[in-house]
C-alpha cells in the first residue's frame, strides 16, 4: 500500500483520465460515457454484461493495467482473474500490470471473497470485458487504416494488417478506441483456443511478497495516523461495567482512552455483522508498543450479561437471535450435545420408511462424531485503518465482503454511502474470519472520536479470545443392515452449538430408499461464523468416517463401496434435491483410484485412508498414507483428485489444494479451541496448535479431472474430506476408529 496522499479517489481518478490522459479505460463508467456515479448505481440493475466488467486501463505509452475486483487473501485471484481478462484482451501478459481494485461494487458488481465463488462468477464477465476491449482496439485500427476489421490480427498487444504491413500497439490505438461505440456482439474463445488460461502462471504479486513490500493493512501508514487497540471482556457472557484510565493516560505517547458502543441499540444485524462484544474500551496513542503497554494499565470492571435479544436479518429472513447469559465451557457443550442427540429434533428430510427398515434390520451400525470450536488464526492479526472526516469515510480494510459492510458502516457510523472510500488491502489470510468486518466499524468509531486517522490493531490474543469461531458440532450416523449385508436405511442426526452442521441433501442422500435426516441447534453466547467450507468441514468428517466403517462392516472395499453407492444414486436416485452430480463424483473417485494405485499390494499394505466430498461446486477426494514418526502418527503422503471444471491456472490451483490438505491435516490432528468459564483456554500460538513444517506431508500429489466445464473454486472443496481420510488412515495405523476431533487427543498422543 502506498501513502494515502498518493491515493486519489476513484472518481477523481476517472475524471483526470478522461480530461488529460488520453488512452482508454474499459469499465463500467467508461462504457456509460462517464455518467455520474449515482446514475451508474441506479442503472446497475438494468445493465447487461458491462456491469460485471473489471477494469482495463491502457495508456498512450502502452501500459496495460488490469484491475482485480475481488479481495485477495491468498487464493491468487490477483493472477487468475486478470488472466481471464487477458485471454481475450491478448495484451502481452508478461507486461500486464495487475492492481487491486478499490471497493466500488457498483462498478465491479462482484467483490466477494468467500464460498469459493470467484472463478465461477468472473468466468464470463471478465472474458467478455477483455474481448470487448480487443474488438474496440481492432476497430480503431481498422478505421485508421481504412481496412475491414476481419483482415486484422492481434498478438501480444499489437494489432496487425499483414497485407499492408501496418501495425500498431494498444497504447497507440487506445485513445481512438475509447471513442467508439461498444460492439453489439462479443464472441468468446472456445477452451481449445485458449493460450493463457489453463497454462501455469506465476503469482503477479510474487516479487512484492518476497521483497517484504508494504501490501497489508498492518503495513499502511498515513500522515498523523495514531495506533488504536481495544480492550474486550475477558470472557463470553461478560460485559463492561466501568473502567479507570487514570494510570493509562499517564503513560507516554497515549492520546485517549474511552469506551464506545460498536453497534447502536436496535441495529438489525445482517449476516456478516457478527461481533463478539458490543461495548469496548479503546486505547489510542502514537506507537504500537506504547499503546500495548498503556492498555495493561487500564483497570476495568466486568459484569455478567443477562439473556439478550438482537435482531438479525440474514439467511432465513428477519429473526430474533437469543444471546443467553452464562459462562459456557467445552465440557458443558459436549454434555449438552450428547443429550440433544437423544431428544426429538427437526426432520429435515425423509425418504421411504426408515423406521420399518431399522425395525427389520439384522444389524445396526451407530456412531457419533464430535468436533470442537476452531479459531481461524489468519497470520496477519485483525486490523483496519480508518480516517473519518466530515467529508469522507476513508478505510484501508482487509475485508472479504466489502459491499456487505456498507449498511453496517452507514448505520453505525452515521456516514452516507457515497462518503465511503475503501481500499481493499491484501489480506494476510482470512479463512472466513475476515468476512466479519466489525473491526471496520470499530476503527471508524475510534477515528471519529479522536478526529484523526487511526490504525486499529488486534493482537493475536485479541483475535483468539474475541473471535468469530467455527462452531462445535455433533453428528450421529446410523445404518440398517439386512441379513445379506445390504444397507437398507441411513439415519443422520446433526446438531451444534449454536448452529447445526447438517446438509440433508448431500451424499449419501439419494442412494438409499429409506433415509432420515434430523437437525437441531442450541443458542450460545460464543460468536461463530464461516470457517473454510462452513458445516461441510465437519459434515464430511462424520459422513466419510462413517461410510468407511460401514464399508468394513458389510465387507467391502471403502473406495469401491463409495463408487457403488454413487452408481446406484445415478441409476436410480431417491428423492429430488440431491446435492451432487453422481457422474462427476464417480469420475473423481476413479481418478483417485488410478493415481493412488488403490487396490495394489503396496496400497493394501500401506496404512491408507480414503475420503471424498462435494461442496462449493467442486469435487475432492484424497488418499492419505500414515506412518509413525518419533512415536507420533504422521501423514507422510497424500494423493488428491479434484474436479473443479476447467483449471484456470494449474500451478496456482495445485498450490491451493496443497494448502487445503495441509490445513485439513493440521486441524484434524491438533485443531481445538477449548472454553472454560466463558473464556478460551488457548490465547496465543504457543498453545493454539497449528500444523508446522515437520508435521506437513513429504508429498502431495494433486490430479485434476480434465474437462471444459465452466470453472468452480478450490479454496474450500479440498479441505473437508481431509479429516476423514486422516481418521480412516489412522485406524489402519493404530487399529482404533476415531470419532472425536482433534484425533491426536483421542489417540492419547497429545
Amino acid at each position, binding site marked *: 500500500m502506498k501513502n494515502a496522499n498518493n491515493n486519489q479517489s476513484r472518481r477523481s481518478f476517472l475524471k483526470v483520465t478522461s480530461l488529460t490522459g488520453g488512452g482508454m479505460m474499459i469499465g463500467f463508467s467508461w462504457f456509460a460515457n462517464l455518467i455520474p456515479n449515482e446514475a451508474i448505481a441506479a442503472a446497475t440493475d438494468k445493465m447487461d454484461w458491462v456491469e460485471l466488467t473489471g477494469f482495463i486501463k491502457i495508456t498512450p505509452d502502452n501500459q496495460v493495467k488490469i484491475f482485480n475486483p475481488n479481495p485477495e487473501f491468498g487464493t491468487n485471484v490477483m493472477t487468475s482473474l486478470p488472466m481471464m481478462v487477458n485471454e481475450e484482451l491478448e495484451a502481452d501478459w508478461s507486461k500486464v500490470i495487475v492492481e487491486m481494485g478499490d471497493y466500488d461494487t457498483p462498478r465491479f458488481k462482484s467483490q466477494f471473497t468467500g464460498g469459493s465463488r470467484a472463478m465461477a462468477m468472473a468466468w464470463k464477465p471478465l472474458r467478455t470485458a477483455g474481448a470487448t476491449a480487443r474488438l474496440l482496439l481492432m476497430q480503431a485500427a481498422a478505421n485508421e487504416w481504412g481496412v475491414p476489421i476481419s483482415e486484422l490480427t492481434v498478438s501480444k498487444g499489437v494489432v496487425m494488417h499483414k497485407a499492408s504491413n501496418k501495425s500498431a500497439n494498444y497504447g497507440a490505438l487506445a485513445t481512438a478506441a475509447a471513442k467508439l461505440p461498444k460492439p453489439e456482439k462479443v464472441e468468446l474463445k472456445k477452451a481449445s483456443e485458449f493460450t493463457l488460461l489453463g497454462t501455469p502462471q506465476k503469482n503477479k504479486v*510474487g516479487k512484492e511478497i*518476497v521483497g517484504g513490500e508494504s501490501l497489508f493493512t498492518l503495513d499502511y501508514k498515513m500522515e498523523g495516523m495514531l495506533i488504536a487497540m481495544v480492550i474486550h471482556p475477558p470472557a463470553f457472557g461478560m460485559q463492561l461495567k466501568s473502567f479507570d484510565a487514570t494510570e493509562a493516560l499517564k503513560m507516554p505517547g497515549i492520546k485517549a482512552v474511552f469506551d464506545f458502543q460498536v453497534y447502536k441499540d436496535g441495529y438489525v444485524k445482517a449476516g456478516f455483522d457478527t461481533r463478539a462484544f458490543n461495548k469496548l474500551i479503546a486505547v489510542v496513542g502514537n506507537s504500537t508498543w506504547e499503546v500495548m503497554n498503556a492498555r495493561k494499565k487500564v483497570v476495568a470492571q466486568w459484569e455478567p450479561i443477562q439473556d439478550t435479544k438482537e435482531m438479525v436479518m440474514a439467511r432465513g429472513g428477519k429473526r430474533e437471535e437469543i444471546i443467553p447469559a452464562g459462562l459456557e465451557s467445552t465440557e458443558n457443550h459436549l454434555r449438552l450435545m450428547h443429550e440433544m442427540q437423544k431428544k426429538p429434533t427437526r426432520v429435515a428430510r425423509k425418504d421411504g420408511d426408515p423406521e420399518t427398515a431399522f425395525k427389520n434390520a439384522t444389524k445396526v451400525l451407530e456412531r457419533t462424531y464430535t468436533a470442537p470450536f476452531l479459531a481461524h488464526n489468519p497470520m496477519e492479526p485483525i486490523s483496519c485503518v480508518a480516517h473519518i472526516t466530515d467529508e469522507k469515510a476513508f478505510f484501508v480494510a482487509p475485508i472479504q465482503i466489502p459491499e456487505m459492510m456498507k449498511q453496517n458502516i452507514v448505520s453505525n457510523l452515521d456516514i452516507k454511502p457515497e462518503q465511503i472510500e475503501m481500499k481493499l488491502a491484501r489480506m494476510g489470510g482470512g479463512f472466513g474470519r475476515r468476512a466479519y468486518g466489525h473491526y471496520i466499524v470499530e476503527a471508524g468509531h475510534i477515528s471519529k472520536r479522536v478526529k484523526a486517522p487511526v490504525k486499529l490493531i488486534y493482537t*493475536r490474543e485479541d483475535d483468539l479470545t474475541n473471535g468469530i469461531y467455527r462452531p462445535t458440532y455433533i453428528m450421529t450416523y446410523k445404518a440398517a443392515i439386512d441379513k445379506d449385508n445390504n444397507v437398507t436405511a441411513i439415519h443422520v442426526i446433526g446438531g451444534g452449538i449454536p448452529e447445526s452442521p447438517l446438509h440433508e441433501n448431500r451424499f449419501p442422500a439419494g442412494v438409499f430408499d429409506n433415509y432420515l435426516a434430523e437437525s437441531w441447534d442450541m443458542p450460545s453466547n460464543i460468536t461463530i461464523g464461516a470457517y473454510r467450507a462452513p458445516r461441510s468441514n465437519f459434515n464430511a468428517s462424520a459422513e466419510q468416517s462413517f461410510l468407511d466403517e460401514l464399508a468394513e462392516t458389510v465387507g467391502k472395499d471403502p473406495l469401491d463401496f463409495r463408487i457403488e453407492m454413487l452408481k446406484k444414486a445415478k441409476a436410480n436416485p431417491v428423492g429430488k434435491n440431491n446435492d451432487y452430480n453422481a457422474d462427476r463424483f464417480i469420475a473423481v473417485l476413479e481418478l483417485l483410484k488410478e493415481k493412488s494405485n488403490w487396490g495394489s499390494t503396496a496400497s493394501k499394505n500401506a496404512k491408507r485412508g480414503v475420503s471424498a466430498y462435494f461442496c462449493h461446486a467442486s469435487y475432492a477426494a484424497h488418499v492419505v498414507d500414515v506412518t509413525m514418526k518419533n512415536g507420533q502418527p504422521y501423514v507422510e503422503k497424500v494423493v488428491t483428485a479434484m474436479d473443479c471444471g476447467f483449471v484456470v491456472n494449474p500451478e496456482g490451483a495445485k498450490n491451493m489444494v496443497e494448502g487445503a490438505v495441509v490445513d485439513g491435516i493440521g486441524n484434524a490432528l491438533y485443531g481445538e479451541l477449548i472454553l472454560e468459564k466463558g473464556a478460551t483456554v488457548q490465547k496465543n500460538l504457543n498453545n493454539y496448535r497449528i500444523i508446522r513444517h515437520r508435521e506437513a506431508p*513429504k508429498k502431495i500429489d494433486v490430479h485434476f479431472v480434465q474437462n471444459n466445464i465452466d470453472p468452480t473454486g478450490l479454496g474450500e472443496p479440498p479441505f473437508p474430506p481431509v479429516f476423514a481420510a486422516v481418521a480412516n488412515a489412522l485406524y489402519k495405523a493404530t487399529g482404533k476408529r476415531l470419532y472425536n476431533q482433534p484425533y491426536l487427543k483421542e489417540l492419547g498422543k497429545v
Partner: protein
Amino acid sequence: MAKFQLKVNGKPLQVEADPSTPLLWVLRDHLNLVGTKFGCGVGACGACTVHLNGRAMRSCQLPVSAVGTQAVTTIEGIVSAEKEMHPVQKAWLELDVAQCGYCQTGQIMSAVALLKSNPNPTEAEIESAMTGNICRCGTYLRIKAAIQQAAKSSKK
C-alpha cells in the same frame, strides 16, 4: 525514552524509543521497515524473523536495548548491493511459494540464515530449522522445495 544507535541493513540509524520496545516495533513503527511482520508477539510463529549478526532471531522477543552494536538485517536488506534478489527469494518466485504471503518474509529470513550456516541441509535439517515459522496457508512443501533449490543454485 532513550536514544539507540542501530546498524540496520548496513546503515547506522538512530531511534528514540522506550528501552523495552521490541525490535519488531522499532523496525515497523519507527524505521518504516514493514517487511518484518507481527504475527503473535510471543515468538511462536516466526513472522517477525530478522538476522542479528547473521543469525535468525524473533524480533518480537528482542528489546531494542539489547541490540547494541549487533548488525540487524531485515528482508529489505538481503538483496545485493546491485538490488538483485537473494537466491532464496528467487527460488521462492520460481516455485511460486506464496498464498497470502504474510508469513513468507519471515520464512525467507529463516531460510537464508539456515543456508548461511548449513549450505547443504538435509530434509530433516530444513524441517528442524524452519519449524518455528508457521504458514497458516500451508505452503510448507513449496517452502522446503524452494530452500533445496536455493541450496542447489548457490553450489553452481
